[in-house]
């Protein structure tokens, strides 16, 4: 999987590159719009991470030019501008998704996974991690064969975490995707923490192997202990 990163800020570009490399992606970083356009047009790229404010050609211009060329490579816009007008402009120009800086890395990874998975069926009816099982239709949760009763919010939270199993999930992602709060709000961080604690006490406390982990400063992850 080849990802082209068009980002003029060297530190940010380097950090994104390192992060993506460690996830097993092949990464090319370029620092100007012209170069980005050249790379995107001339070689096979699976995904473009595009900064909007670039020296020379702006991200939107590049996007327009690429789409005119008939390239339909998925584009994820990264920008510090986050007014609704900016979002609309980006999406109208043919971007596939939009992420506002400063973004959380797990969220970037999740969006990349979603974009590159596009087209493939996403209909998973059963989720499983070690001895934890989720039935997405009956919304029943079992661990080691025992039924675990969850509130509806706890279930939604767990399902989301399970769908991202092996990958970190940030509080922002939870607020946005599970609580459907579009604007980040501080009270929600506390709410999420309490829900996580309760969920953990239900699915982990009486079992040997903890599955729900908190990664300080990043968020949460569902994984078996032996995974990295």
């Amino acid at each position, binding site marked *: 999987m080849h990802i082209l990163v068009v980002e003029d800020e060297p530190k940010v570009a380097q950090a994104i590159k390192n992060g993506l490399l460690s996830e097993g992606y092949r990464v090319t970083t370029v620092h100007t719009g012209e170069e980005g356009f050249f790379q995107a047009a001339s070689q096979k790229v699976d995904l473009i991470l595009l900064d909007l404010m670039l020296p020379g050609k702006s991200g939107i211009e590049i996007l327009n030019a690429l789409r005119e060329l008939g390239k339909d490579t998925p584009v994820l816009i990264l920008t510090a501008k986050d007014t609704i007008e900016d979002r609309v402009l980006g999406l109208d120009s043919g971007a596939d998704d939009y992420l506002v800086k400063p973004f959380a890395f797990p969220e970037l990874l999740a969006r990349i996974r979603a974009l590159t998975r596009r087209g493939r069926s996403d209909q998973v009816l059963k989720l499983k991690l070690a001895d934890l099982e989720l039935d997405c239709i009956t919304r029943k949760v079992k661990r080691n064969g025992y039924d675990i009763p969850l509130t509806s919010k706890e279930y939604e939270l767990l399902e989301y975490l399970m769908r991202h199993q092996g990958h970190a999930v940030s509080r922002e992602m939870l607020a946005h995707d599970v609580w459907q709060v579009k*604007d980040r709000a501080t*009270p929600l961080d506390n*709410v999420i923490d*309490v829900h996580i604690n309760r969920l953990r006490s239900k699915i982990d406390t009486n079992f040997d192997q903890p599955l729900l982990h908190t990664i300080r400063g990043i968020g949460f992850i569902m994984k078996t202990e032996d995974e990295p």
Partner: protein
Amino acid sequence: MKLVLSFRTQLMLLNTLLVILIYAVAAFFIYAFMKNRIESVELEKLQEQVSTVSTVVYKSGGDYNDWYHLGDQKPFLIMEDWKVSYQTTAWKDLNFPDKLTPGDFNNKSLKTYSAEQHNYLVKINFVRTGIDTMHNFQVVVAMENTEALESVEKLARSLVLGIPLILILAVAGSFFLSNHAMGPVKLLRIKAQQISAQSLSLRLPVINARDDIGQLTIVFNDLLTRLEYTFEQLKRFTADASHEFRTPLTSIRSTGQVALKNAGNVNDFKDAVASMLEDTDRLANLIHDLLQLTRHDAGRLKIDFSKEDLVSHINSVIEELKILAEEKGITISFLHPDTIRLHINPAYFKQAIRNILHNAIKYTPGSGLIEIQLRQEESGIIRIDIKDNGPGIPPDLREKVFERFFRIDNARSASVGGSGLGLAIAKQGIEINNGNIKFVDSNRGATCRMVFPANSAQDDSSAI
């Protein structure tokens, strides 16, 4: 090239022009009136003389001998059938054209005549008289009116001579007047020039509160007061904001420096990085909140309104935050009618309720009680009370708590957390929805009251 005149010069010119115009009109009327008066007095005198001569001629019945009583001094001429029958020496001295014909008077009885710088009025009268035979006499009397004409001329001359004098007076007067009128303006200008961002406490002197300039000055001073307040707020805001930014930055920097210096094991480094990430989260939240506030300040935001059920929106916020209350053993009660519909922007409304309720949960002690009451009064006013039984807010701080970064107790804030913008955002959210928000008296704890006017509840247009 366009001529640009100062306001004072314009005033002066206009004033001068006006004075001259008034003078010209007045002079014209004086001249016309005086001329008319003098002429009519002259005519009366002439008429008298004509009458005298005519009476004598009439009474004489045509007898020339009686005419000598009329004397020789007055210039007059008596003709019979336009043939001279009698003339005085004075008349001869006039060197009047020898023969007078009916055409000379051209159907008018009056005629003017000038000779050797003397001017005469000449009048004719027809007298029919006689005892046996009828005689037709033409009596022609001349009277010198040189003096009268001269006095009219003199009057005209002096009126014209008055123009330069009046002009000088008008210019001087206007100059004085405009100076007097614009003097305070000049003073204000000088004073206003001294006012800068550093001296916003200065005010302009109000010389006369009742005149236009005084009124203007008062308005200007009010503007200065508002500016000063805003400026103060901005200064405090900037100071507070930089403090809020510095705290996490300091923490990030020192954590990083300490971690590098101590170079412990991987777990120590991980801890340090995690702590730094938490602080960046704080910074990100802070920037987000600030942007939200200022974006609306700038007034560039388009906000959509729709008719919404407040009960369900409040319920969803309670549902969202209930878990925090449960953790502290706090009970939340919600008293409400079945439904209350109002034109609102749900996102802003919910955020406001969320922040207020979260605040209440934060400050309510364990196993406390938060009561939410939603009701519509008979007048249509909608009222939401969120009442906790925490420590409450002292009356003098109830306005201030809505200010950005304001904290009742600075020492406490670190443990309670938050950016210090929660209530400011709540206030903005309520005001966007046409409501107002304040903390009111209550027997215990703090009661936050939000009031929405009746008309916005009935108003079906999506006006802001």
